[in-house]
């Protein structure tokens, strides 16, 4: 044997030699010295939390923050004076009290303008006066109310009739409309049928000296500008929240990028026998006039799949060669020295995959709703962004062995687009909101697999859902 052969024999024997030792104990020792594992928080939870906070904020804004401003501010800011009236802005009570502006500055042109001037001595009377608009009477009161004759109106100081009333304006005159007038518009917008009656009733409750003199003329029809603002108020969307859950039959479409992949696709489609999904979501809905609505939110979806397939493995292994090296020992016995050659080991087995795919979907749906006597029908449709979070699964082979499914490489964190359409039946349940039940169809537009996978996979589905909206 040459020296090189000696070294080779040494090398082979030494490299393959491992003493008997305790792997688990050593792992415990290693693990104790490794830095603490940082727990990964599920990202979808943050998405969901963010969505809920956003939805809650919008809801709060829609219900509480817009009540006074939506109607009042545009009116006060946009109405222009076009007549022969001085363009004096409405003066606040605080400014008058502070002496920044004298009551005389609150001049009003027209037949009763002299009355204002004549009552300069009435300076101790603190009042806030609004400009009349096309004959609408204004109340000269120190008012903190948001409604003209609403329940919150406070008349802390009696106002002399000559000050508190205004004669009808001529048609050319207009002025910046105060919040009180704007609230009148709000009244008209909300309850335009009952507003005159309520207003008359409220007037009767006022002290005689505080009642406007020209009451009949205040009930004239609103001007075109006010009517436009009424329309604006009526067009404000109403926001709502929907929570739903459901089950479905995923419809997955395969397509091979290359002809070589077609065989695999065909085989897999033929063997796939179970596929189902569950989903739950939250939607923020804005409802507009005429039954139209716009909804967006977040939806969590899980798709389970089971399929069988024939797994073929080809492994290159080193095997001993029985003819490469041998010698005869002292007793003339043939002894083999383990030299190796490469060979391919091929195995085939039937396996079953159980996989669970996880999605976070973000729909943007346009809806139309038709009210019927006892329920309403709603059709919704639009694009859905699908954020794929990968899959987890196990594989059984024909011997019953179980092992985790390998990796998520071809799908993980991919994003896709799909289109959705659905029909819901909604029914009010007392004052608690409405329950709805419906069907929806989703059509996958773009693929969820990366290019290296060699095939495209689009997820859609047909599902039923049950939800609540309020």
């Amino acid at each position, binding site marked *: 044997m040459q020296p090189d052969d000696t070294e080779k024999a040494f090398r082979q024997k*030494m490299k393959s030699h491992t003493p008997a*030792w305790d792997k688990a104990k050593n792992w415990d020792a290693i693990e104790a010295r490794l830095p603490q594992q940082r727990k990964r928080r599920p990202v979808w939870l943050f998405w969901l939390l963010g969505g809920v906070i956003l939805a809650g904020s919008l809801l709060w804004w829609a219900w509480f923050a817009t009540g006074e401003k939506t109607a009042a501010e545009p009116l006060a800011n946009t109405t222009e004076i076009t007549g022969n009236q001085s363009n004096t802005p409405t003066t606040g009570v605080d400014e008058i009290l502070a002496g920044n502006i004298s009551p005389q500055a609150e001049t009003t042109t027209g037949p009763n303008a002299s009355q204002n001037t004549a009552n300069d001595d009435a300076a101790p009377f603190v009042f806030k006066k609004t400009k009349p608009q096309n004959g609408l009477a204004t109340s000269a009161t120190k008012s903190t109310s948001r409604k003209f004759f609403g329940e919150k109106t406070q008349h802390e100081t009696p106002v002399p009739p000559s000050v508190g009333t205004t004669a009808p304006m001529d048609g050319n005159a207009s002025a910046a409309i105060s919040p009180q007038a704007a609230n009148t518009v709000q009244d008209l917008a909300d309850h335009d049928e009952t507003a005159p009656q309520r207003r008359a009733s409220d007037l009767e409750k006022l002290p005689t000296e505080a009642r406007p003199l020209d009451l009949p003329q205040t009930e004239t029809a609103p001007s075109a500008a006010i009517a436009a603002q009424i329309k604006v108020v009526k067009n404000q969307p109403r926001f709502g929240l929907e929570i739903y859950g459901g089950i479905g039959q995923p419809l997955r479409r395969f397509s091979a990028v290359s002809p070589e992949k077609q065989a695999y696709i065909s085989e897999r489609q033929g063997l796939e026998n179970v596929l189902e999904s569950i989903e739950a979501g939250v939607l923020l809905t804005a409802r507009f006039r005429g039954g139209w609505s716009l909804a967006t939110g977040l939806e969590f979806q899980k798709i389970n799949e089971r399929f069988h397939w*024939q797994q073929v493995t080809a492994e290159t292994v080193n095997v*001993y060669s029985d003819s490469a090296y041998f010698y005869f020992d002292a007793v003339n016995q043939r002894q083999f020295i383990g030299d190796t050659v490469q060979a391919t080991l091929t195995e085939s087995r039937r396996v079953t995959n159980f996989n669970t795919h996880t999605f976070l979907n973000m729909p943007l749906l346009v809806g139309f709703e038709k009210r019927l006597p006892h329920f309403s029908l709603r059709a919704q449709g639009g694009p859905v962004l699908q954020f794929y979070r990968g899959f987890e699964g196990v594989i059984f082979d024909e011997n019953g062995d179980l*092992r985790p499914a*390998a990796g998520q490489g071809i799908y993980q964190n991919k994003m896709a687009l799909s289109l959705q359409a659905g029909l819901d039946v909604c029914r009010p349940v007392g004052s608690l909101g409405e329950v709805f039940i419906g069907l929806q169809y989703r059509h996958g537009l773009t693929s969820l697999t990366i290019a290296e*996978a060699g095939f495209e996979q689009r997820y859609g589905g047909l599902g039923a859902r049950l939800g609540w909206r309020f």
Partner: protein
Amino acid sequence: MTPAIQQSNNQTIKQSNNPTIQQSNNPTINHLVQIEKLIAGCRRNDRKCQQALYLRFADHAMGLCYRYARDLYEAEDILQNAFVKAFSNIKTFDEKKGDFQGWLSRIVINEALQLLKKNKRFHLTGDDHSFHDGEVEPEIYGLLEAEEIHELLAQLPDGYRIVFNLYVVEEYSHQEIGELLGISPSASRSQLTRAKAMLRHLIITQKKIEHAA
């Protein structure tokens, strides 16, 4: 004689043209991919991935440690240090420069050498001995079992044993050994020659004892 499977060599897997193989969750085909995923998991400090990677390479690493250590306890110390260092520095591992096993092997060897230097056990052994026992019959080498070889090597001075291991088993060149140990290539060469002579002497001595018995 039926060929016996010695070990799988996953580094030499050739991708099949069979689309089923390429696409499947085949454990063999995906071996390298799985190791890459385990490494990616280790980079995220994922404990399960670290454990899986440890289990996959622990035997190889222990064999390596055992060759450089005096006993099993010292080998376990080297192994633990090496894996802790590997997991701590795994972000510096570059797949393009070589496979993980080679990278881990270098860490293990460095750890072993550091331990020797720390304990002041590594020093070049002078030519204090002259072995003139004649030649060993080549067949004798083939008959030695791995454990016997290990016991023989354990009797060598540390300097001899380290150089012998690096050159014969790990297949380092004398230049590389010199850089690793901080000695000249010629010194490495002479250490190897003496190591072989002493090993030969030990084998002959052992055989003489066996014959006498």
